[in-house]
């Protein structure tokens, strides 16, 4: 097991190197000059030259990459061009906001969707199955920003139960913090419910047709025991892969929701960094995101044998 983990982590290193090289090159190919964006339309040639030099943008690209790469290897992701803050604490600070919301939402979505999918598969072609599929399809089709705005309007403006903007960290005031993240979590949970439910249902339908399920029923096991003890474990394995993909995708930023709910997450940080051509922040964010993807996939691979004993590490 440890060998597998270390092998996978070692394999991540070339991925990270390649990604960092690509990110470094691609962001610089995009037209737009960070110094110019800082100074705006009032930039005269002299100020521009001075600012570029101060930001190290007057160096050649290979030199810039070497300076950055050397610093990254020593754990220093540089400083933001926009705010001059150290990049590593900045992105970790923002990442924890996004990660908290995403992890809770995906967990809630999985806890609701997997039993719902299993239940729908068990009652395939019944009105219950139809209702579950229709709800899942509807949730899958709703854009997250629209649902978010709708909830904001209902619970924030009309009912006035929850704050519309802002964020409080759980460390500062837990109950107040909860009031700020309820709506984003509900939105994200609802949006992700659709895909997981459909996947869980499809997997369960396949599993319920297998011979060992018929055998279990023939043994006289109750339907509950057949479903929860025998069908669920096997049906959950493909769903786990999907949850892993969703998790990786969402952890790389929920920029739209973060904008709608004014959350200081990593998605919004990345979007702002793109607009401001804040190269160090963007490079740092993308490195972190790549690393998170690798970790989430590793975690899914490690969990997979628990649900499907045929898979060996």
């Amino acid at each position: 097991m440890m060998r597998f983990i270390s092998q996978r982590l070692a394999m991540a290193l070339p991925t990270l190197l390649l990604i960092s090289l690509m990110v470094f090159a691609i962001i610089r190919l995009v037209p737009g000059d960070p110094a110019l964006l800082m100074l705006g339309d009032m930039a005269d040639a002299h100020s521009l030259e001075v600012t570029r030099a101060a930001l190290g943008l007057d160096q050649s690209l290979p030199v810039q990459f070497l300076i950055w790469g050397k610093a990254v290897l020593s754990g220093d992701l540089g400083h933001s061009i926009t705010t001059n803050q150290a990049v590593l604490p900045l992105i970790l600070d923002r990442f924890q906001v996004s990660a908290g919301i995403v992890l809770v939402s995906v967990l809630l979505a999985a806890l609701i969707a997997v039993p719902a999918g299993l239940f729908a598969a068990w009652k395939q072609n019944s009105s219950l199955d139809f209702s579950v599929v229709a709800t899942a399809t509807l949730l899958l089709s709703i854009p997250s920003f629209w649902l978010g705005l709708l909830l904001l309007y209902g619970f924030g403006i009309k009912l006035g139960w929850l704050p519309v903007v802002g964020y409080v960290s759980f460390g500062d005031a837990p109950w107040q913090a909860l009031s700020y993240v309820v709506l984003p979590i509900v939105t994200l949970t609802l949006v992700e419910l659709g895909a997981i439910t459909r996947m869980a249902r499809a997997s369960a339908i396949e599993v319920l047709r297998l011979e060992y399920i018929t055998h279990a029923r023939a043994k006289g096991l109750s339907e509950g025991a057949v479903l929860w003890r025998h069908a669920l474990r096997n049906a959950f394995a493909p769903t786990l892969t999907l949850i892993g993909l969703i998790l990786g995708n969402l952890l790389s930023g929920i920029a739209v929701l973060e904008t709608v709910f004014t959350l200081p997450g990593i998605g919004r940080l990345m979007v702002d960094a793109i607009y401001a051509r804040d190269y160090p922040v963007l490079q740092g964010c993308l490195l972190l995101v790549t690393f998170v993807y690798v970790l989430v996939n590793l975690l899914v691979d490690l969990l997979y044998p628990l649900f499907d004993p045929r898979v060996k590490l």
Partner: protein
Amino acid sequence: MKKAFILAGGLSAVLMGNAYAENVLNVALNADIRSTDPGVNRDTNSDAVMLHLTEGLVAFREDATVGPLLAKDIQVSEDGLRYTFHLRDGVKFQNGAPLTSAEVLWTWHRYLDPKTQWRCLGEFDGHGGAKIVDVAAPDPLTVVFTLDKPNGMFLTSTSLPECGGSGILHPDSVVDGKWKAPIGTGPFKLGEWKTGQYIDLLRFADYKPRDEAGPDGYTGNKSTTLDRVRLLVIPDPAAAKAALLSKNVDMLIDVTPLDSQELAATPGVKISSSGTMSVNALLFQTRDPLLKDVRMRQAIAYSLDTTQIVAALTNGLSKANNSMVASGSKYHTAVEDQGYGFDPTKAQRLLSEAGYKGQPIKLLVNKRYPSIFDMGVFAQAMAKASGINLELETLEWGTQLERYQTGNFQMMGFPYSERLDPALSFDSVTGDKDKEPRKVWDNPDAKQWLQEAMRESDPAKRQALFDKLHQQMIKDVPLIPLYNGNSISALRDYVQGFRSWPVSKPRLWTVSVRRT
């Protein structure tokens, strides 16, 4: 008896405690600030916030003229080389230290040190504006600036928001050579800056206001009744609107004309708007093979019904202005009112004389500033009616800014940020294209007149120069200024005393909150 006394005392203390409610104003900010170092790492939001914390020797008044702020008075020597500032007595920094000429000297030496990277260094080291050759402090309340030659823009440049109003700082703002936090003399002091979330400004209890009866632009009496201002970073306009409607914020300071119309109709919400000195314009590349013919540029100008375009773009809040001298400037006279006029027949005649055969002309716009995109759409439709083939190309703002800087365009819709003096407005468009490709107007006479306007301090002579510059610009058509922007704010009805003004930045010390 003793117990009863203690109980009564305790009860009254509790009641007193309950009676005191912190007077807080929550304001939405559309983007976070860049730093707390005035005029160094800055943008318009950073300037707006810093100008609540720090104060300069002089500042803009309500009518965009310059008046004393930390200075009691200003004396200019007859040769125009020496500016003597007498400081107000009794002014304190937010750390309790008194303001003296030593801090002014320290601040200006820091600003003039290239290592500080002050945005406005070029305005004072001879690169672009005045050149300060000496700053001296003959006594604790007097500071003397000496310039190498007379410069009519010295006080204006000193007051510019993008220079942080040249705010005077206490040396403790910098620790071990590194910027820590601003310690100024403003009516608010910095509470907390939670990046990406909010900035808290706290009332500075020992603030020493000027003697005037009320506030006057960035100067005058700036005392405040607010205990705290929380500026919440809300980048999404829809979320900001929702926050105002749910009373999570009390004020939005950057509202579009379209949103202002909707919000004005909402019970409990009011709108404050004012014309600003920013300029929205259509720029021409006068070296383009097609557009180098002035008749082509004139034809486009005559094909546009500017009045109608501006009315539609701003919901009637702004009026058309074909001059670089802003409508709100004291230098905007009947001469500057003379624009192009809408004359499709004349446009078609000029096109025919220029031999135009319907070749496409690329007009660059962006969606970061929706008014610029809409301006392009209107211009395209109206020009088409006169037979001009404008093609819109929508760029991301950073890309468009680079194309602007390098002069790589045929036509471009562009929002010039506000310049608070007509000389600065003309300077943003006038210059040598070989050295600065972003300059759209490369006319030797205009450059000469502009230099004179920069040096001159006599208002009558400056007026004559601005008139000449405007009239020549109308003939040359290097750009078509369409209108000056609007500063629109939406407020809950319990927010009192706020007023938009030509400098499109809020002055929150004027505000009081009376929640019922």
